[in-house]
């Protein structure tokens, strides 16, 4: 069965969701589009290529409290409660696919999993690619998992349910039944590189000077990690509040920083910048392929957009190809 929703009914639909769920959607804040909790459908932005940050932080929040400890005679440990049911509206296919990839790695991580289980996802397809997008290189222009998939077809959204929850939801009367499936023009990105076999090309280039040469200008600022929907590396950090109590947090970190591999007595395993970038790229395309049979990239292009040194990761991947 196929469904549609009139665009004029979107606010009603969002308000319906808000009766039972916290709704997170793209909003404009300080001139940029980000995902945020909304208190009115009016806040939702519709003319955006993608949000500045990926929705990663709703599943892997930077600084998340893992537990609290209190030292008295013994040590007491308390876990935070967090079972809010949420809907994220307006996620792009690339970001939704990034979550499916993260599931393979962090599915056993209780904190991540319970947030995934508590969150319903409404993907809105892209009708236009941004200048840095290269999702088509990985086939990540098509959402692989979602609760509902919206496609903007002008006056209305064509709606495809992708889960039991989604199938229940489209039964409500603001959705109309459509006789035939909508055929969407496929999205075209200006950027493209043949992703298949990229792991082999990276492995071959391992001892090449290209790494030193191309990444000489990198500042190790880690902005690319922060905006990447698939950078999930973290530190476990004790954060005391007084002598006898405090919290233990998960803080997101990046393999591009010197601190990442620093051990006691100040030894750094990857002191060379090119080695750290090699780790960053190889983890995504070579090691993750070996260990999880997937690339940790969906071609969202945020790393390119936010690099202060104008490093173009996609061009680099083309170069070594």
């Amino acid at each position: 069965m196929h469904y549609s929703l009139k665009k004029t009914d979107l606010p009603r639909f969002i308000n319906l969701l808000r009766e039972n769920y916290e709704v997170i959607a793209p909003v404009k804040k300080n001139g940029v589009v980000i995902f945020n909790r909304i208190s009115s459908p009016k806040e939702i932005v519709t003319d955006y290529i993608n949000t500045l940050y990926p929705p990663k932080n709703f599943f892997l929040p930077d600084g998340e409290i893992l537990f609290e400890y209190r030292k008295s005679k013994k040590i007491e440990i308390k876990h935070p409660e967090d079972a809010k049911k949420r809907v994220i509206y307006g996620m792009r296919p690339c970001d939704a696919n990034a979550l499916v990839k993260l599931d393979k790695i962090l599915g056993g991580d209780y904190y991540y999993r319970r947030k995934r289980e508590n969150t319903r996802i409404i993907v809105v397809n892209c009708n236009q690619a941004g200048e840095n997008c290269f999702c088509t290189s990985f086939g990540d222009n098509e959402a692989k998992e979602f609760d509902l998939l919206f496609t903007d077809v002008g006056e209305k959204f064509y709606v495809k349910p992708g889960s039991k929850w989604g199938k229940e939801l489209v039964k409500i009367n603001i959705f109309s039944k459509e006789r035939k499936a909508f055929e969407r023009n496929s999205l075209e990105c200006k950027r493209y590189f043949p992703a298949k076999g990229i792991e082999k090309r990276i492995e071959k280039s391992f001892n090449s000077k290209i790494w030193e040469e191309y990444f000489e200008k990198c500042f190790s600022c880690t902005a690319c990690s922060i905006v990447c929907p698939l950078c999930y590396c973290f530190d476990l950090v004790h954060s005391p509040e007084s002598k006898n109590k405090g919290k233990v947090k998960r803080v997101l970190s990046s393999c591009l920083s010197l601190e990442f591999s620093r051990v006691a007595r100040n030894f750094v395993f990857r002191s060379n910048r090119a080695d750290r970038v090699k780790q960053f790229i190889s983890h995504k395309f070579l090691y993750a392929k070996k260990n999880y049979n997937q690339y940790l990239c969906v071609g969202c292009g945020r790393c390119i957009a936010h690099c202060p040194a104008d490093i173009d990761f996609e061009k680099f991947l083309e170069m070594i190809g």
Partner: protein
Amino acid sequence: MIYTPEIGRIRKIKKETRDARTFRIELENKELRDNFYFQPGEFVLISVFGIGEAPFSISSSPFKKYFEITVRKVGNVTGALFNLKEGNYIGVRGPYGRGFPMDEFEGKNLILIAGGCGLAPLKSVIEYILEKREKYGKLALLYGVKTLASILYKKEIKKWRRIFDVYLIVEKKEKNWKGDVGVVTRLIDKIEDFKNSVFCICGPEQMISEVINSLKKKKVNHADIFVSLERKMQCGLGLCEHCNINHIYVCKDGPVFRYSELENLEELKWEEK
């Protein structure tokens, strides 16, 4: 729950050297305490609440209701551990990782080669073997230290010397030392039988690579060499990415590896050093 430590209690603190101590730890939870089992070579993550968490190899026998770690004061967590007293509480996660394949070693000679604090996980191997002595062939320990004062487990070594071959080497000449002087690789010539032997190495990476080079010259099968590696393990579960060497995770795939698993890793590049 993942990342949440169990509570352990420090039962005994023993001074080993000027800057190394052995902590005997017992889990508070009886069921967990009774079922605490590991392969020698596995590690635990110990936390001092408010300071942080750090990985330590277990240095005691797996057949005890307690476990021991030997700690050298080198950083924050180790410094905080040195401030604790017997009876104090700490956090314990683990045991984690892959240790030495003790079952596979049965019937073979074991040559243990340690540098400095690298003796800690090998002490666990020794205690395991002494518990099941009849199952293993000859046992030998080659132990290299910087100075006489930095020798760990002095009392135990005295006892071991009566049961199996222990060779000690000190980096530089010292007044009260009449034995071998130099690096641990010089002791490799003391080994009589390279066939039917497995080699377990733990110590600084530089030392490990030199030992491996010496063993290669003796035509030792690469699959018979086992090394215990050290990295910045944080989660212990192969998730946080702090301890990877190319596609392998020291916390999950190691810390004990067969050399044949490591020899092609780009990030180790031991040969060049």
